[in-house]
Protein backbone atom coordinates (compact mmCIF):
# COMPACT_ATOMS: atom_id res chain seq x y z
CA UNK A 1 0.00 0.00 0.00
CA UNK A 2 1.39 3.38 -0.97
CA UNK A 3 0.81 6.71 0.70
CA UNK A 4 -2.52 8.34 0.24
CA UNK A 5 -2.37 11.63 -1.63
CA UNK A 6 -5.01 14.32 -1.68
CA UNK A 7 -5.87 15.76 -5.11
CA UNK A 8 -7.81 18.98 -5.54
CA UNK A 9 -10.57 18.52 -8.10
CA UNK A 10 -12.87 21.54 -7.74
CA UNK A 11 -15.26 20.68 -10.55
CA UNK A 12 -18.98 21.28 -10.81
CA UNK A 13 -20.63 17.97 -11.65
CA UNK A 14 -23.31 19.31 -13.91
CA UNK A 15 -20.91 21.62 -15.76
CA UNK A 16 -21.09 19.55 -18.98
CA UNK A 17 -24.87 19.75 -19.03
CA UNK A 18 -24.90 23.46 -18.23
CA UNK A 19 -22.45 24.14 -21.07
CA UNK A 20 -24.46 22.09 -23.54
CA UNK A 21 -27.66 23.83 -22.42
CA UNK A 22 -26.05 27.20 -23.17
CA UNK A 23 -25.16 25.93 -26.65
CA UNK A 24 -28.77 24.87 -27.25
CA UNK A 25 -30.03 28.32 -26.19
CA UNK A 26 -27.52 30.07 -28.44
CA UNK A 27 -28.27 27.86 -31.44
CA UNK A 28 -32.00 28.52 -31.14
CA UNK A 29 -31.45 32.24 -30.66
CA UNK A 30 -29.93 32.20 -34.15
CA UNK A 31 -32.91 30.43 -35.70
CA UNK A 32 -35.26 32.66 -33.63
CA UNK A 33 -36.96 29.62 -32.16
CA UNK A 34 -38.04 30.01 -28.56
CA UNK A 35 -37.68 26.81 -26.54
CA UNK A 36 -40.06 26.34 -23.63
CA UNK A 37 -39.66 23.58 -21.05
CA UNK A 38 -43.02 22.45 -19.64
CA UNK A 39 -42.92 20.55 -16.36
CA UNK A 40 -45.46 19.12 -13.92
CA UNK A 41 -46.55 16.01 -12.03
CA UNK A 42 -48.08 13.14 -14.02
CA UNK A 43 -51.71 13.80 -14.87
CA UNK A 44 -51.76 17.54 -14.22
CA UNK A 45 -52.55 18.37 -17.85
CA UNK A 46 -49.36 18.88 -19.89
CA UNK A 47 -50.67 17.16 -23.02
CA UNK A 48 -54.10 18.83 -22.75
CA UNK A 49 -52.40 22.19 -22.40
CA UNK A 50 -50.32 21.56 -25.52
CA UNK A 51 -53.47 20.72 -27.48
CA UNK A 52 -55.16 23.93 -26.23
CA UNK A 53 -52.02 25.91 -27.03
CA UNK A 54 -51.85 24.60 -30.60
CA UNK A 55 -55.47 25.65 -31.06
CA UNK A 56 -54.85 29.11 -29.59
CA UNK A 57 -51.72 29.78 -31.64
CA UNK A 58 -53.16 28.59 -34.94
CA UNK A 59 -52.44 31.13 -37.65
CA UNK A 60 -50.13 33.27 -35.49
CA UNK A 61 -47.15 31.18 -34.34
CA UNK A 62 -45.64 27.99 -35.73
CA UNK A 63 -45.53 25.44 -32.90
CA UNK A 64 -43.43 22.28 -32.61
CA UNK A 65 -43.41 19.81 -29.73
CA UNK A 66 -40.73 17.59 -28.20
CA UNK A 67 -42.36 14.86 -26.16
CA UNK A 68 -40.44 13.05 -23.46
CA UNK A 69 -41.79 9.91 -22.01
CA UNK A 70 -40.11 7.17 -20.08
CA UNK A 71 -41.20 4.33 -22.29
CA UNK A 72 -44.23 5.07 -24.43
CA UNK A 73 -45.42 7.15 -27.37
CA UNK A 74 -48.97 7.76 -26.07
CA UNK A 75 -48.58 11.54 -25.69
CA UNK A 76 -46.79 12.02 -29.00
CA UNK A 77 -49.53 10.11 -30.82
CA UNK A 78 -52.22 12.32 -29.25
CA UNK A 79 -50.37 15.47 -30.26
CA UNK A 80 -49.46 14.25 -33.75
CA UNK A 81 -53.07 13.17 -34.33
CA UNK A 82 -54.02 16.89 -34.19
CA UNK A 83 -51.50 17.68 -36.90
CA UNK A 84 -48.95 19.28 -34.56
CA UNK A 85 -45.36 18.49 -35.58
CA UNK A 86 -44.01 16.37 -32.72
CA UNK A 87 -40.81 14.47 -31.95
CA UNK A 88 -40.85 11.70 -29.38
CA UNK A 89 -37.87 11.13 -27.14
CA UNK A 90 -37.87 8.02 -25.03
CA UNK A 91 -35.87 8.70 -21.93
CA UNK A 92 -35.30 4.98 -21.41
CA UNK A 93 -35.99 4.94 -17.69
CA UNK A 94 -34.70 8.40 -16.86
CA UNK A 95 -37.07 10.65 -15.02
CA UNK A 96 -36.14 13.90 -16.76
CA UNK A 97 -34.66 15.38 -19.91
CA UNK A 98 -31.20 16.86 -20.02
CA UNK A 99 -29.52 19.06 -22.60
CA UNK A 100 -28.06 16.05 -24.47
CA UNK A 101 -31.50 14.56 -25.05
CA UNK A 102 -32.95 17.94 -26.04
CA UNK A 103 -30.11 18.35 -28.56
CA UNK A 104 -31.12 15.04 -30.14
CA UNK A 105 -34.70 16.32 -30.31
CA UNK A 106 -33.85 19.60 -32.02
CA UNK A 107 -31.42 17.81 -34.37
CA UNK A 108 -34.33 15.63 -35.47
CA UNK A 109 -36.64 18.53 -36.31
CA UNK A 110 -36.23 21.47 -38.67
CA UNK A 111 -36.15 24.02 -35.83
CA UNK A 112 -35.87 27.02 -38.12
CA UNK A 113 -39.43 26.30 -39.28
CA UNK A 114 -40.82 26.98 -35.79
CA UNK A 115 -41.36 30.12 -33.71
CA UNK A 116 -41.92 28.11 -30.56
CA UNK A 117 -40.94 24.60 -29.52
CA UNK A 118 -42.46 23.21 -26.34
CA UNK A 119 -40.70 20.39 -24.53
CA UNK A 120 -43.15 18.21 -22.63
CA UNK A 121 -40.82 17.03 -19.89
CA UNK A 122 -41.30 13.79 -17.93
CA UNK A 123 -44.11 14.04 -15.36
CA UNK A 124 -42.24 14.65 -12.13
CA UNK A 125 -41.68 17.68 -9.86
CA UNK A 126 -38.25 16.65 -8.64
CA UNK A 127 -35.68 15.68 -11.25
CA UNK A 128 -36.60 17.95 -14.17
CA UNK A 129 -35.89 20.92 -11.88
CA UNK A 130 -32.28 19.85 -11.47
CA UNK A 131 -31.30 19.72 -15.13
CA UNK A 132 -31.00 22.67 -17.45
CA UNK A 133 -32.58 21.57 -20.75
CA UNK A 134 -31.40 24.57 -22.73
CA UNK A 135 -34.87 26.11 -22.73
CA UNK A 136 -35.29 29.90 -22.82
CA UNK A 137 -38.35 29.74 -20.58
CA UNK A 138 -39.42 27.29 -17.89
CA UNK A 139 -43.11 26.79 -17.22
CA UNK A 140 -44.81 24.48 -14.77
CA UNK A 141 -48.35 23.31 -14.24
CA UNK A 142 -49.84 22.62 -10.85
CA UNK A 143 -53.36 21.22 -10.93
CA UNK A 144 -55.89 21.99 -8.23
CA UNK A 145 -56.34 18.34 -7.11
CA UNK A 146 -52.61 18.18 -6.25
CA UNK A 147 -53.08 20.68 -3.44
CA UNK A 148 -51.81 24.14 -2.47
CA UNK A 149 -48.97 22.75 -0.34
CA UNK A 150 -46.76 21.65 -3.24
CA UNK A 151 -44.42 24.70 -3.13
CA UNK A 152 -43.48 23.57 0.39
CA UNK A 153 -42.60 20.08 -0.85
CA UNK A 154 -40.90 20.89 -4.16
CA UNK A 155 -39.35 24.34 -3.66
CA UNK A 156 -36.69 23.98 -6.35
CA UNK A 157 -39.23 23.45 -9.14
CA UNK A 158 -41.21 26.56 -8.16
CA UNK A 159 -38.07 28.65 -7.81
CA UNK A 160 -36.73 27.99 -11.34
CA UNK A 161 -39.93 28.66 -13.32
CA UNK A 162 -40.89 31.84 -15.17
CA UNK A 163 -44.57 31.01 -15.16
CA UNK A 164 -46.89 28.82 -13.14
CA UNK A 165 -50.18 27.65 -14.61
CA UNK A 166 -52.69 26.55 -12.01
CA UNK A 167 -54.77 24.10 -14.03
CA UNK A 168 -58.13 22.40 -13.42
CA UNK A 169 -59.66 25.47 -11.75
CA UNK A 170 -63.02 23.90 -12.64
CA UNK A 171 -62.35 21.68 -9.59
CA UNK A 172 -61.96 24.62 -7.19
CA UNK A 173 -65.53 24.49 -5.88
CA UNK A 174 -65.08 20.81 -4.99
CA UNK A 175 -61.84 21.21 -3.09
CA UNK A 176 -60.29 23.07 -0.15
CA UNK A 177 -57.48 24.39 -2.38
CA UNK A 178 -56.52 27.85 -1.09
CA UNK A 179 -55.46 29.98 -4.08
CA UNK A 180 -54.28 32.91 -1.93
CA UNK A 181 -52.11 30.60 0.20
CA UNK A 182 -50.66 29.03 -2.94
CA UNK A 183 -49.83 32.43 -4.44
CA UNK A 184 -48.18 33.55 -1.20
CA UNK A 185 -46.03 30.42 -0.99
CA UNK A 186 -44.99 30.53 -4.63
CA UNK A 187 -44.15 34.26 -4.61
CA UNK A 188 -42.10 33.84 -1.44
CA UNK A 189 -39.94 31.32 -3.32
CA UNK A 190 -39.86 33.20 -6.58
CA UNK A 191 -40.97 36.84 -6.60
CA UNK A 192 -40.53 37.14 -10.40
CA UNK A 193 -42.87 34.29 -11.37
CA UNK A 194 -46.12 34.94 -13.25
CA UNK A 195 -49.11 32.92 -12.03
CA UNK A 196 -52.08 32.23 -14.30
CA UNK A 197 -55.23 30.25 -13.46
CA UNK A 198 -56.60 28.05 -16.23
CA UNK A 199 -58.80 25.09 -17.04
CA UNK A 200 -57.78 23.07 -20.08
CA UNK A 201 -61.14 21.35 -19.86
CA UNK A 202 -63.42 24.40 -20.00
CA UNK A 203 -60.94 26.72 -21.71
CA UNK A 204 -61.10 29.29 -18.88
CA UNK A 205 -57.97 31.44 -18.67
CA UNK A 206 -56.39 29.91 -21.77
CA UNK A 207 -56.54 33.25 -23.57
CA UNK A 208 -54.27 34.80 -20.92
CA UNK A 209 -51.76 31.98 -21.40
CA UNK A 210 -51.80 32.41 -25.19
CA UNK A 211 -51.26 36.17 -24.79
CA UNK A 212 -48.33 35.55 -22.44
CA UNK A 213 -46.79 33.14 -24.98
CA UNK A 214 -47.22 35.55 -27.88
CA UNK A 215 -45.65 38.35 -25.83
CA UNK A 216 -42.69 36.22 -24.79
CA UNK A 217 -42.05 34.98 -28.33
CA UNK A 218 -42.24 38.56 -29.67
CA UNK A 219 -39.75 39.76 -27.03
CA UNK A 220 -37.50 36.79 -27.79
CA UNK A 221 -37.50 37.54 -31.49
CA UNK A 222 -36.77 41.17 -30.77
CA UNK A 223 -40.09 42.38 -32.17
CA UNK A 224 -41.12 44.10 -28.97
Amino acid at each position, binding site marked *: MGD*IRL*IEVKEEILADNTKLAEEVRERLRKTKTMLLNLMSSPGSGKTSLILRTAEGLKGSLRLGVIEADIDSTVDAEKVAARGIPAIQLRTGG*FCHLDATMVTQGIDAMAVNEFDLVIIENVGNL*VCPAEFDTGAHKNVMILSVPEGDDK*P*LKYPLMFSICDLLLVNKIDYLSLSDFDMAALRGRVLA*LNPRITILEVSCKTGAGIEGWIDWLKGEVATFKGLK
Partner: protein
Amino acid sequence: MKGKDISMHELPIMESILKIVLKHAKMNRARKVMAIHLQVGKLSDLEDEWIQRYFDYLSKGTLAEGAKLKIERTPIMVQCHACSTSYEAEMARMGELVCPTCGEKGGTLLSGREYFIKEMEVQ
Protein backbone atom coordinates in the same frame (compact mmCIF):
# COMPACT_ATOMS: atom_id res chain seq x y z
CA MET B 1 -47.97 2.34 -13.43
CA LYS B 2 -45.27 0.40 -15.16
CA GLY B 3 -43.01 0.16 -12.14
CA LYS B 4 -40.62 2.60 -13.74
CA ASP B 5 -41.97 5.72 -12.14
CA ILE B 6 -39.00 6.13 -9.82
CA SER B 7 -36.37 8.77 -9.44
CA MET B 8 -33.38 7.82 -11.57
CA HIS B 9 -31.46 11.01 -11.94
CA GLU B 10 -28.80 9.76 -9.56
CA LEU B 11 -27.46 7.71 -12.43
CA PRO B 12 -26.44 10.50 -14.85
CA ILE B 13 -25.10 12.55 -11.95
CA MET B 14 -23.02 9.61 -10.77
CA GLU B 15 -21.77 9.02 -14.32
CA SER B 16 -20.54 12.63 -14.42
CA ILE B 17 -18.82 12.24 -11.05
CA LEU B 18 -17.07 9.07 -12.19
CA LYS B 19 -15.95 10.68 -15.44
CA ILE B 20 -14.40 13.65 -13.63
CA VAL B 21 -12.81 11.44 -10.96
CA LEU B 22 -11.20 9.12 -13.52
CA LYS B 23 -9.90 12.11 -15.50
CA HIS B 24 -8.15 13.51 -12.41
CA ALA B 25 -6.91 10.07 -11.35
CA LYS B 26 -5.26 9.65 -14.75
CA MET B 27 -3.80 13.18 -14.75
CA ASN B 28 -2.24 12.47 -11.36
CA ARG B 29 -1.10 8.95 -12.27
CA ALA B 30 -3.06 7.45 -9.40
CA ARG B 31 -3.33 3.67 -9.10
CA LYS B 32 -6.42 3.68 -6.99
CA VAL B 33 -9.03 6.17 -5.79
CA MET B 34 -9.71 5.71 -2.07
CA ALA B 35 -12.19 8.48 -1.32
CA ILE B 36 -14.01 11.35 -3.00
CA HIS B 37 -15.14 14.47 -1.19
CA LEU B 38 -18.37 15.87 -2.57
CA GLN B 39 -20.36 18.95 -1.73
CA VAL B 40 -24.05 18.55 -2.41
CA GLY B 41 -26.56 21.33 -1.82
CA LYS B 42 -29.32 20.65 0.67
CA LEU B 43 -31.95 21.34 -2.00
CA SER B 44 -30.87 18.18 -3.84
CA ASP B 45 -32.96 15.16 -3.05
CA LEU B 46 -30.10 12.73 -3.68
CA GLU B 47 -29.72 10.45 -0.70
CA ASP B 48 -26.21 9.58 0.50
CA GLU B 49 -26.89 5.86 0.58
CA TRP B 50 -28.09 5.80 -3.01
CA ILE B 51 -25.29 8.02 -4.24
CA GLN B 52 -22.82 5.44 -2.91
CA ARG B 53 -24.77 2.49 -4.34
CA TYR B 54 -24.98 3.96 -7.82
CA PHE B 55 -21.34 4.92 -7.69
CA ASP B 56 -20.33 1.39 -6.66
CA TYR B 57 -22.35 0.00 -9.54
CA LEU B 58 -20.85 2.34 -12.15
CA SER B 59 -17.25 2.24 -10.91
CA LYS B 60 -16.81 -1.55 -11.06
CA GLY B 61 -13.64 -2.42 -12.90
CA THR B 62 -12.27 1.16 -12.84
CA LEU B 63 -9.58 2.84 -10.70
CA ALA B 64 -12.36 4.22 -8.55
CA GLU B 65 -13.88 0.86 -7.63
CA GLY B 66 -14.47 0.73 -3.88
CA ALA B 67 -13.92 4.45 -3.34
CA LYS B 68 -15.79 5.90 -0.40
CA LEU B 69 -17.90 8.96 -1.07
CA LYS B 70 -17.69 11.56 1.66
CA ILE B 71 -20.62 13.88 1.24
CA GLU B 72 -20.84 17.31 2.80
CA ARG B 73 -24.24 19.00 2.61
CA THR B 74 -23.96 22.67 1.81
CA PRO B 75 -26.59 25.05 3.16
CA ILE B 76 -29.44 26.68 1.27
CA MET B 77 -28.64 30.38 1.20
CA VAL B 78 -31.21 33.00 0.33
CA GLN B 79 -30.86 36.73 -0.19
CA CYS B 80 -33.65 39.03 0.95
CA HIS B 81 -34.95 41.14 -1.93
CA ALA B 82 -35.73 44.07 0.34
CA CYS B 83 -32.59 44.55 2.48
CA SER B 84 -30.13 42.18 0.71
CA THR B 85 -29.31 40.22 3.89
CA SER B 86 -28.15 36.66 3.12
CA TYR B 87 -29.51 33.98 5.38
CA GLU B 88 -29.76 30.21 5.60
CA ALA B 89 -33.08 28.54 4.83
CA GLU B 90 -34.43 25.08 5.49
CA MET B 91 -35.72 22.84 2.70
CA ALA B 92 -39.00 22.19 4.51
CA ARG B 93 -39.71 25.90 4.98
CA MET B 94 -38.71 27.20 1.56
CA GLY B 95 -42.26 28.34 0.79
CA GLU B 96 -42.43 30.44 3.96
CA LEU B 97 -39.21 32.44 3.80
CA VAL B 98 -38.96 35.40 6.17
CA CYS B 99 -35.88 37.62 6.38
CA PRO B 100 -34.42 37.54 9.92
CA THR B 101 -33.27 41.16 9.60
CA CYS B 102 -36.22 43.05 8.17
CA GLY B 103 -39.06 40.50 8.17
CA GLU B 104 -39.61 40.71 4.39
CA LYS B 105 -41.13 37.57 2.89
CA GLY B 106 -39.28 35.70 0.15
CA GLY B 107 -35.91 36.05 -1.47
CA THR B 108 -33.55 34.93 -4.21
CA LEU B 109 -31.79 31.59 -4.03
CA LEU B 110 -28.01 32.04 -3.83
CA SER B 111 -26.92 28.43 -3.32
CA GLY B 112 -28.20 25.05 -2.24
CA ARG B 113 -28.52 23.15 -5.50
CA GLU B 114 -24.87 22.53 -6.32
CA TYR B 115 -23.00 19.30 -6.96
CA PHE B 116 -19.31 19.93 -6.52
CA ILE B 117 -16.32 17.58 -6.36
CA LYS B 118 -13.93 19.18 -3.92
CA GLU B 119 -11.04 16.73 -3.74
CA MET B 120 -10.14 13.05 -3.72
CA GLU B 121 -7.79 10.71 -1.91
CA VAL B 122 -5.72 8.50 -4.16
CA GLN B 123 -2.84 6.06 -4.02
